[in-house]
């Protein structure tokens, strides 16, 4: 489904080289790594949004980096993308944001589009807020709207960048992870980048990690036992423990208050 062949990049003070990666159809790969390790760059390269120093990105047999803008747009229609930041268009409602690709690519009128997206709104529990604007949404809802928009055209391939980043509450985390697992059951090919070990554990069929500007399989990284990897794994454990401790503290305080 997606293949990266000897991809190298040198961007935004993030460098990586010789990246080889293969994600077969229907599989879910998670790329784990700290912030600024190059995770977002990998996704943007796969979307043809930023150039590479060298290498090829093959999506469904086509090198997205070699085709012209129009060809890229064709390939991108097969891909859903959930970015990290607030990416909803402020001047459109929730329904408008989710249905935007349908209106643009198929010329669907607004009323018809609202009917078409209703099952998706129901699936993500967004039907009550479909006429709200992005500025009125909670972070949880914003992330769910982004996911709904990404899957509205039933993409074969889904890129999700830091799905649980930001101030998602525990409910939001559980919901997002749950929807990702549902999509896995539907055999959608998914590439997730995250710094959350918990999400990686919950969703990954295959797990990769960015270490020393290289993308390596997590299992291989564990075997090598180099000091850098041990230190990094410890920091991941600490990060995870901190999250757990924070949540435990939060819930204990709630109980005390009651």
């Amino acid at each position, binding site marked *: 489904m997606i293949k990266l062949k000897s991809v190298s990049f040198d961007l935004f003070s993030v460098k990586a080289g010789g990246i080889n990666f293969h994600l077969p159809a229907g599989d879910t790969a998670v790329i784990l790594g700290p912030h600024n390790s190059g995770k977002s760059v990998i996704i943007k390269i796969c*979307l043809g949004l930023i150039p590479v120093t060298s290498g090829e990105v093959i999506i469904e047999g086509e090198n997205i980096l070699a085709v012209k*803008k129009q060809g890229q747009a064709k390939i991108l*229609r097969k891909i859903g*993308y959930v970015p990290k930041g*607030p990416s909803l*268009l402020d001047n459109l409602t929730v329904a408008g944001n989710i249905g935007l690709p349908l*209106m*643009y*690519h198929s*010329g669907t009128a607004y009323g018809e589009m609202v009917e078409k997206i209703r099952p998706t709104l129901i699936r993500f529990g967004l039907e009550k807020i479909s006429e709200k604007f992005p500025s009125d949404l909670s972070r949880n809802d914003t992330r769910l709207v982004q996911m709904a928009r990404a899957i509205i055209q039933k993409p074969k391939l889904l890129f999700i960048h830091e799905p649980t980043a930001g101030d998602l509450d525990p409910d939001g985390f559980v919901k997002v992870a749950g929807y990702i697992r549902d999509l896995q059951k539907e055999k959608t090919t998914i590439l997730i980048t995250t710094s959350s070990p918990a999400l990686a554990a919950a969703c990954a069929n295959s797990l990769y990690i960015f270490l020393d500007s290289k993308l390596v399989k997590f299992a291989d990284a564990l075997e090598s036992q180099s000091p850098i990897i041990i230190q990094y794994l410890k920091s991941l454990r600490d990060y995870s423990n901190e999250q757990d401790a924070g949540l435990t503290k939060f819930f204990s305080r709630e109980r005390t208050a009651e």
Partner: protein
Amino acid sequence: MPLNISGEHIEQLPTARKDFPSEGTDGLLEQVAAGLIAVGRFYLQLLSIFIGFAAAAIQIKGSQWKFVKNILTHQIIFSGVDAFFVVGSISAMVGGVLMIQLISFSSAFATDKMMMELLVSVIIRELAPLLTTLILIARSASAITIELGTMRLKHHDEILDSMGISIVKYFHMPRILGLTISNVALSFYFVLVTLASAMAISIFRENVSIESLLIDFVASLTLTDLLLCGIKSALLGLTIALVCIYHGLSVEKSSTELPQQTSAALVNSYLLCYKFNMIMSITYYLLA
């Protein structure tokens, strides 16, 4: 050597005139050359935005056009229809004041056929395209620059790209077409209201019959005047859209760039529209 915020040494940027390598005539020439290159680059960028728009317009599919038409309609409502009251008020006042001033010189102006010709050509050829352009800049230029600049800051252009949605079709095309169509429509509306207002003053002040004024008006009107008014208005509307898109796209990283680029968009729109209007007028009078 100075240090940056992380404590690393940084190369000191030239701050005073003496820091620059060239001085005197050479320095001045270099600055002039740099200025000319910057101006040339600005015009080239405007041209490339226009070429991008034209290419997208040629390649647009029927389904995409349906979508673009929807945004275009909203743009025409905002830039054109919503401006009817402002343009109507200003044009009524302009027409009235113009006629009052003319009559104050001689009451014959209210009835003179030649004066009608003068009034018609001044309003249609010059005042209407220029004044509606100024109103359009005031109403739409900042809105377009801020909207596009904000989209750039929030990386919405990347999001649209990732969905296979062309920002040229989604944003540029409706703005360019919307402003061009709106400016033409507003100019003709301006002409009608201004002349009606001027005629009303003539009728009330000098008891001139409406029939004779209308006959003089129709006799004074030429197709060339109307064409010139339409072409000027269309080109000036197009210019505003291109300048605003250029400045919106120039916003890159910081929110402080937004007011800077908006202000630059307004100033450059005014300057360019005056310049183009003058060039078109001179060209017309040289050819006529």
